[in-house]
């Protein structure tokens, strides 16, 4: 089923897609989202809204998506299975579709151990792959998970995440295949700093023919400083930041490190654009949304196609 998703249309057209993300505020101020939105306007085909990322309480993804939608964006609703059981999940899927959300990214979510409420009880009634199955079933079969009919199917373009850098490496492409089999139509990957390893994963993906069944958007993140690089390398689970990236940042004066980080990011996108099977980029400029435009411009991704 085709949806109203702008991202789907851009990909359908064969254009190299650009997405980015907005982290919602730790408060009820809608202007935080609007300000971030302004920075991304005209720069991306769709913008993700994270769902209490790193298990820290923030404004809900659905509410934030709606604020972006009012600004003319085609938001991507991120949903984690950590905080909701299948009743709440299906309810939120219907609500999102009713409010005109066209895209959903299905995730299991960071464990609450990392967040601001480590005392919380997690749910994990279903996992991220089963969430993909749930959205697909509701959309394509018009049925709830209990096989009962629903009245109006939610038309959502279904996405999932992939981390090519987690262990065990040899099952990473196979796990992607499971997500595709479950119904994922687009994939946004973990931040790529180790391009050689990503290329290795991508080759496997292409060999399996998965790139023809799912649109892979390569995740990139500009590093602001040596400190951020080290933090990502050592403290963020499932992140692979090679020493040469850190060394390159160290090689320039402190005040020029962020510019170097942007440069590295642009060069990465240029290399990713040439890789077989990569259909777009997902630019995750963490609390640095003002740089997404510069990166997209530098990588020759602007203007965005009209669809």
């Amino acid at each position, binding site marked *: 089923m085709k949806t109203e998703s702008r991202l789907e249309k851009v990909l359908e057209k064969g254009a190299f897609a650009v997405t980015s993300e907005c982290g919602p505020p730790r408060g009820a101020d809608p202007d935080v989202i609007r300000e971030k939105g302004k920075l991304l306007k005209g720069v991306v085909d769709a913008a993700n809204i994270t769902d209490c990322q790193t298990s820290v309480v923030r404004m809900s993804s659905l509410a934030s998506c709606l604020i972006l939608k009012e600004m003319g964006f085609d938001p991507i609703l991120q949903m984690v299975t950590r905080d909701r059981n299948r009743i709440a999940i299906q309810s939120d899927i219907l609500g999102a579709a009713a409010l005109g959300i066209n895209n959903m990214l299905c995730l299991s979510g960071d464990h609450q*151990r990392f967040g601001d409420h480590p005392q919380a009880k997690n749910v994990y009634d279903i996992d991220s792959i089963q969430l993909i199955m749930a959205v697909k079933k509701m959309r394509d079969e018009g049925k709830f998970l209990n096989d009962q009919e629903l009245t109006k199917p939610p038309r959502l373009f279904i996405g999932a995440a992939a981390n090519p850098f987690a262990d065990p490496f040899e099952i990473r492409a196979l*796990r992607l*295949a499971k997500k595709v089999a479950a119904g994922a139509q687009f994939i946004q990957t973990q931040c790529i700093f180790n391009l050689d390893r990503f290329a290795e994963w991508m080759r496997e993906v292409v060999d399996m023919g998965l790139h023809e069944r799912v649109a892979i958007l390569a995740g990139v993140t500009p590093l602001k400083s040596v400190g951020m690089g080290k933090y990502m390398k050592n403290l963020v689970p499932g992140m692979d930041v090679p020493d040469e990236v850190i060394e390159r940042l160290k090689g320039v004066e402190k005040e020029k490190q962020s510019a170097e980080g942007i440069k590295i990011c642009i060069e990465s996108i240029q290399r990713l654009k040439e890789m077989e099977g990569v259909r777009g980029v997902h630019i995750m400029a963490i609390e640095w949304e003002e740089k997404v435009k510069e990166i997209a411009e530098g990588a020759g991704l602007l203007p965005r196609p009209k669809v």
Partner: protein
Amino acid sequence: MIVAEAKPIEDVIAMIDRYDKIILAGCKECVAVCAAGGEKEVQLLASALKTARKTAGREIEIREVTLERQCDPEYVEGIRGFAGDYQAILSIACGVGVQYMAEHYKTIPALPGLNTSFMGGSIEQGVWSERCQGCGQCILHLTGGICPITRCSKSLFNGPCGGSSDGKCEVDKEIECGWQLIIDRLKTLGEFEARFTELFPLKDWSTSRDGGQRKIVREDLKQ
């Protein structure tokens, strides 16, 4: 077995503060094996509590008993003869034992001396580890004999997530990635291709605690 550990002694002292005459009841089953609530632990705890109360200038009388099982009415009834002479029963059995005491001795407070932790086994002397969450519908034949509900921190059925690193879980470097274990084991058994590529369907949790308090009735054994 059910694995439990002693509550901090200060907590137990605070719990029994209003009583001067208590029964301290151990159990000879699981909690004895995991060295938390057997005969020896009853003696040690009784003497620690008496010392603490003596220091506080208010002595306490403690009747020490260790039952064959605290999860069996027959044995729990074993203290019927003298239970009424005491103000409280401090049980260092698992949570089942404490509740059986409460159910059988309705007018006497039953107090937990342990924190009941999990169903598991011993790894080495002094180390126990969780293995089962009692979901009521075992799938171990599909996952190489390793339980994803228990061993994966997110209980993923289609793992591993993106946080698996060098065989360890993102939650804690001390925790092994359950899915790495499952994958390794499936490979050893020659079942990897067949099992791992299959999509694992949604779990029916109604046989788990989510279906309400569980009960097993065996008509063939009922009298």
